[in-house]
């Protein structure tokens, strides 16, 4: 029998007990089953590879009660939607820079699904993480991600009322070649074990790339008069500080616990920094360097500050004493910075008729800024844009080799020349890779990756429609005129939506 506690005010006792109470809500909720085998209720394979003696020792990364969560989140929602409502009432989209608005079509049609995928992912972490403290934390994260997914859909609703290009996101995200890299990467996270998924989603994405996506990028957005979307980015970021805590505490706890975890964590860090770099930097860089009419900083500068100095620098300073090193492929990323956005932008421009947003050639101001920020710009793509200005038709819809890991066209080069690797034969199939990191990551887990087909693989299999219009419909381009050039060669808008 329990003894009667000494009389203290109930309020006071409740306050004192918050920490213990929170433990009751997290670690103490599970129980040892006796009607079903324990390994069916808590499958041990989900701790695959990680060494840990007592999962209950895992600390709660943050202590949050449902009642406080709903209160805080309801307020955040109210302020965000007030901004959306005002923006709709005052027709804010007509004030956004036309070039930036085209970028929003690319960003908003795919962002929600990545949030949604993380929501599904963290539901499984909540259910199957062997560390009880992570379960409740993952549960809050999952519902946060549901919030983000739905708020991007809210944004799309507002934009769709006014402008074309915000309507076909469901098909575009699933089928368009430009989103396949994101899908492949996020479905890879989704099917990883809980710890690997946390390294990918919580550490690399939400600590590593978060300030680029949710602090620096909205600043650029605001400079281009897109206040509602910038507000959406910031409020999303406000939830992510919790998610970062999960990633940080998990990494530290695993490294402190057992030195055998170090090579596992290092391998995941190497893999996910590269995989998410390919998705996030590739997509993000053209916003800083091209979609922004009013430029704030170059992607190269932003990447150096937020990813290299803050994230990698911080991580190595913090966890270096346990032996953690900077990611194996960091030098590839740094080398990539001088070409990344320019190569991607050129590639998109060549395929502008297969897109749902418009691209455009850099004007004289852009060229000056790009050359200042990237001195190699004239050599790399200056000639190409001169040809465009001269009226040459540079469009190209032909097949190109696409990387069987990152699903991006093999278009990158370094000081030794083109980085494409392949063909690589494996079990009767041929694979191409855009670079050494993608090939190595693929070859570390060939069983996982070898079955997936790129869009080009599907075309070569005869599985995609031959008819160009049918092909466009298949990838989500259901009406003419969404893509193409935003400006005529003389620099005037071809866009019939609006102009300044």
């Amino acid at each position, binding site marked *: 029998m*329990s003894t009667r506690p000494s009389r203290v005010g109930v309020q006071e006792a409740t306050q004192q007990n918050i920490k213990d109470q929170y433990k009751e809500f997290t670690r103490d909720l599970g129980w040892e089953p006796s009607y079903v085998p324990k390994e069916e209720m808590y499958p041990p394979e989900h701790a695959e590879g990680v060494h840990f003696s007592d999962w209950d020792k895992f600390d709660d990364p943050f202590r949050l009660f449902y009642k406080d969560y709903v209160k805080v989140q309801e307020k955040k929602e109210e302020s965000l939607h007030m901004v959306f409502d005002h923006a709709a009432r005052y027709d804010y989209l007509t004030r956004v820079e036309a070039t930036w608005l085209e970028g929003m079509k690319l960003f908003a049609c795919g962002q929600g699904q990545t949030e949604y995928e993380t929501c599904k992912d963290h539901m499984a972490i909540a259910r199957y993480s062997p560390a009880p403290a992570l379960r409740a934390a993952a549960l809050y994260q999952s519902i946060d991600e549901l919030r983000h997914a739905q708020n991007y859909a809210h944004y799309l*609703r507002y934009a769709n009322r006014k402008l074309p290009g915000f309507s076909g996101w469901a098909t575009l*995200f699933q089928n368009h070649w430009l989103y396949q890299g994101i899908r492949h990467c996020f479905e890879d996270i989704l099917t990883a074990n809980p710890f690997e998924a946390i390294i990918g989603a919580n550490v690399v994405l939400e600590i590593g790339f978060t300030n680029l996506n949710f602090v620096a990028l909205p600043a650029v957005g605001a400079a281009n008069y897109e206040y509602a979307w910038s507000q959406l980015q910031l409020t999303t970021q406000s939830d992510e500080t919790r998610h970062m805590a999960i990633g940080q505490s998990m990494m530290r706890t695993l490294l402190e616990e057992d030195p055998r975890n170090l090579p596992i964590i290092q391998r995941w860090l190497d893999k996910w920094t590269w995989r998410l770099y390919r998705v996030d930097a590739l997509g993000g860089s053209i916003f800083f360097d091209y979609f922004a009419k009013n430029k704030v900083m170059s992607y190269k500068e932003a990447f150096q500050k937020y990813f290299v100095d803050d994230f990698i620098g911080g991580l190595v300073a913090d966890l270096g004493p346990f032996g953690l090193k900077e990611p194996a492929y960091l030098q590839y990323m740094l080398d990539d910075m001088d070409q990344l956005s320019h190569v991607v932008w050129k590639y998109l421009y060549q395929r502008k008729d297969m897109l749902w947003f418009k691209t455009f050639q850099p004007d004289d101001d852009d060229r000056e800024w790009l050359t200042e920020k990237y001195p190699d710009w004239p050599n790399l793509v200056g000639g190409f844009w001169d040809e465009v200005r001269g009226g040459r038709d540079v469009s190209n819809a032909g097949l190109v080799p696409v990387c069987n890991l990152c699903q991006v066209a093999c278009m990158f080069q370094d000081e030794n020349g083109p980085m494409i690797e392949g063909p690589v034969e494996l079990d009767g199939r041929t694979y191409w890779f855009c670079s050494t990191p993608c090939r190595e990551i693929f070859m570390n887990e060939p069983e996982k990756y070898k079955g997936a087909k790129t869009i080009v693989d599907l075309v070569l299999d005869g599985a995609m429609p031959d008819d160009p219009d049918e092909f466009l419909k298949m990838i989500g381009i259901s009406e003419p005129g969404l893509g193409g050039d935003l400006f005529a060669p003389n620099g005037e808008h071809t866009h019939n*939506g609006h102009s300044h």
Partner: protein
Amino acid sequence: MARKTFEHLEGQRRRPDVYEEVTAYVQWGETFRDKFPTLPNEGANYHFPEHYKLGYWDPTKTRWKSHQWESFRDPNRLTYRSYHEVQSEREAALEAVLAAARSEHAVRYLDPEWVETLRMFFAPMRFAEWGISMAHQYVGRFSISSLVTNPSILQVFDELRHTQRIAEWTHDLETEHGGFGGYRAQWLEDPMFQPMREYLERVCVLRDWGEVVVATNLVLEPLLQRVLYRTLSDLGNAHSDSVLPHFAYSVYGDEERHWSWAAALAAMLNEESDENRATTGDWIDSWTPLALRSVEALAPVYSIVGKEPVFDSALAEARNLAADVLESAGVTGVALQDRPTVVGGETS
């Protein structure tokens, strides 16, 4: 050029509302196939091998089959935003009740019989709530459409809410009266909870999300709700408990939502094919006996305050409620009607 709605929602008779626009077609894959041209290879191109770690959502994760998953509408039409509007209000109301109870030291004046009753059942119920939450975490992950995932995840979160409120009020009861700390042993050993624990353990290892939805929302929750929370809140009122009735009322509101969305889903699927109707029926038949045992085993809760007859009528009402819920799902709960009540648990 501007559109009234998104491409994937065009062609509906009514203009889609906010709920539909932010919850439909967010999850790519199988459910798109009847609406759009989809990439070969089952819609989801990357479909990493099935055995690969946590796996993917796909049609094999439930026996229910449908060509209209994206036509499902949660009758509550909740989004993240509207859910938080509703729940922050409910939580504030409950918080006010607790604050008033604390300032009045209400817990001190509960009569001993009632305290003993609370001791028997209240604190261990956190595990039951969490068990349903765990089961729905599986649904949230593997359900095939965002329209199903949405209410399921909100439900996961509801159950967390109930769990935390039970734990919180237990602290007050423990501090004032003692004897509320043995909830884990009660859950694991007390015969009163064993059928329910068995039920939830079995639900937690299901690998068919449709079956989880039926077993939790259509079979267990209506029975449990009526036998336990609803009736005990009446008894609580009779014993001047100023907290439990409000808590029970608040839980009831959540759970009505749970069975209403599950019933709407099952009704849509049962309407679509006889195979689905048979599947739903199989699940109901296989889970009902243990569900009844789970609530029948709770009879001793009523004995302290001498209310055995109340239990019998509560059980009868629970069966009726469960039968109504099943009827709204388009199936009949034969097992609910035919089986004689065996008070105390053991049936075989």
